[in-house]
């Protein structure tokens, strides 16, 4: 018996029960559709939201002084001169390079004072990067990069009872133990959906922040962005290689661990649902295979009695299981791929409260879909795993088949 013949035999065997085979394969295909749909939506949203949300704070990557992350000391800075920027530009795949000074200060007005988070930003670059100007709810955005004015989070402005045009004092510790003290006019009030940020943030033009903290031409971080979220690991590796040991490269998950945690929790819950789904479908596949084995006990016995080696018979049954699963996979891909491509090109628009919240956060209110090949590979992998498990049954069964008993039925 040649292998080609065995393949043909196996293929014809599964179509002896056309309806059953089609039903089983369809179950697999639909499980695959649901699983891929969910995962594609999840990964698409993560990538989309991550791209948005990291722009306001962590970026994809940040370059920092090796000791800065320890206690965010204003003494641990990186240069901001052209030579250093040229070095950053050597990192392949970097699309945006944004300087920031991030530190703490005491904000004071009248007899009220409160610890605030100071963010010194290059007005033009920052607006291009994060769209900060669009966050201004009253007043105006920075017009020069050295003006002595600030943007206040709306929660913070409410705490002090301050409005655009009024003054706020910032007081803290500057570079190398100097006193950082400055009086600033409030140019505008910015609103962030994140309450804790909104109640603490003060934006300053970069030059004014450098002056306040007496840092000279230095920054606490260089924020880097790349083409898309999936390019981050490579970008990180390249950044480390180009910048060398004197610069620490930190990715968004390291800088915002709570965000990374949120995503992995959400991802895990989605994956769990999918596993449950595959569990159910797996039993369906198993039931079909058990039937295919049990109903052919006599047939197997006759073939064995006629001199067919058991291994060959086992091989044929293995091929049958494989064809069954592959039929499911092919059907699944045929329905799923066009649907995912369609949604990838036409993301689901959101409406109502969710859309409003997302717009507030600066996101486009859509559910985008990911077409990452690893998603497809993952699902096919799971189905092949199910198949491997299910195919054990006929293998063992044929291996133990007692010819005489089976012939008698």
């Amino acid at each position, binding site marked *: 018996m040649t292998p080609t013949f065995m393949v043909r035999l196996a293929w014809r065997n599964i179509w002896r029960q056309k309806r059953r085979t089609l039903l089983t394969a369809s179950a697999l295909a639909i499980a695959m559709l649901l699983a891929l749909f969910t995962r594609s939506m999840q990964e698409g949203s993560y990538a989309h939201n991550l791209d948005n949300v990291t722009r306001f704070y962590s970026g994809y990557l940040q370059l920092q002084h090796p000791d800065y992350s320890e206690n965010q000391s204003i*003494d641990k800075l990186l240069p901001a001169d052209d030579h250093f920027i040229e070095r950053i530009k050597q990192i392949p795949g970097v699309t945006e390079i944004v300087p920031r000074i991030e530190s703490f200060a*005491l904000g*004071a007005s009248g*007899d*009220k*004072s*409160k*610890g605030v988070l100071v963010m010194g930003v290059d007005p033009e670059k920052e607006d291009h990067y994060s769209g900060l100007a669009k966050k201004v709810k009253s007043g105006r955005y920075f017009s020069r990069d050295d003006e002595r004015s600030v943007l206040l989070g709306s929660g913070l402005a409410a705490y002090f009872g301050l409005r655009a045009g009024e003054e706020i*004092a910032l*007081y803290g*510790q*500057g570079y*190398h*133990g*100097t*006193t950082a*003290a*400055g*009086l600033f006019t409030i140019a505008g009030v910015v609103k962030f959906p994140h309450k804790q940020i909104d109640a603490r943030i003060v934006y300053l033009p970069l030059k004014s922040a450098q002056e306040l903290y007496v840092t000279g031409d230095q920054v606490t971080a260089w924020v880097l962005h790349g083409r898309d979220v999936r390019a981050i690991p490579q970008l990180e590796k390249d950044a480390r290689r180009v910048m060398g040991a004197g610069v620490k490269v930190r990715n968004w998950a390291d800088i915002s661990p709570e965000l990374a945690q949120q995503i992995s929790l959400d991802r895990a819950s989605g994956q769990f649902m999918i596993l449950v789904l595959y569990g159910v479908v797996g039993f369906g596949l198993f039931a079909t295979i058990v039937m295919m084995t049990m109903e052919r006990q006599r047939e197997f016995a006759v073939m064995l009695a006629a001199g067919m080696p058991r291994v060959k018979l086992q091989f044929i049954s293995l091929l049958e299981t494989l064809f069954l699963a592959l039929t499911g996979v092919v059907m699944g891909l045929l329905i799923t791929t066009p649907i995912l491509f369609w949604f990838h090109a036409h993301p689901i628009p959101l409406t109502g409260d969710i859309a409003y919240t997302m717009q507030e956060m600066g996101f486009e209110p859509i559910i985008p879909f990911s077409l990452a090949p690893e998603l497809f590979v993952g699902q096919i992998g799971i189905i092949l795993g199910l198949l491997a498990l299910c195919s054990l049954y006929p293998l063992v069964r044929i291996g133990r088949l007692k010819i005489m008993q089976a012939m008698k039925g």
Partner: protein
Amino acid sequence: MKLKVLGILIFLFLTGTAALAETASEIVRKADLQMRGESSYTETTMQIIRPDWTRTMSMKAWSKGTDYSLILVTAPPRDKGSSSLKRGKEMWNWVPSIERVIKIAPSMLGQSWMGSDFTNDDLINQSSIVVDYTHRLLREEKFDNTDCWVIEATPKENAPVVWGKLLLWISQDQYHQRKIAYYDEFDTLINTLNTLDVKEIGGRMLPTRMEMQPADTPEQKTVLTYQMAAFDFDLSTSFFSQDNMKRLRE
């Protein structure tokens, strides 16, 4: 002869118990009084030492009782005229470069004073050790060749303090605070203050050098050295006003 020995022993025993009878709180109060008197004036320099830079500041400080204190920075020029005032439970900083008085909220007591290893609480709110804590005598121990009581101070409920616990080494002969170990609420050592160079200053024997050493960064510390001191002179409480805080320049 035997009687004499016995007499000495009894004498030693009596004096010993007399000393022990002094409560821990009494010792702490005396030590605080020793350092600051009913009123005090000091001139000090503060050296902030970091691995890659150091910075020196000069200060003048006044205090009266446990409720009033005022610290004025006289050098370097950039910070000259900056001052910190405490009246009762309230504290303020005067920042001349922006001409603003900034109130120090209780939540900021634990933050660094002018970039040093001393906190606002350590410098402006010194007397808090007497009023805001309960004290317990733990043991006796030598520090810098001097016999000391080791006293544990735990904050009273609702007291506006930053530390979870303090250990104080107070010398038995002079009631000097020779060492203070500062712990957070999780019982982790945060800072250690050592006081050294006991000599006569302002008519008293006092440690004239204080070194604040953060526990987690051994290569950095802040050294406070006393240049001049005067005690128990007449000083009106009206001296400790916001107006005066702004007016003092030299």
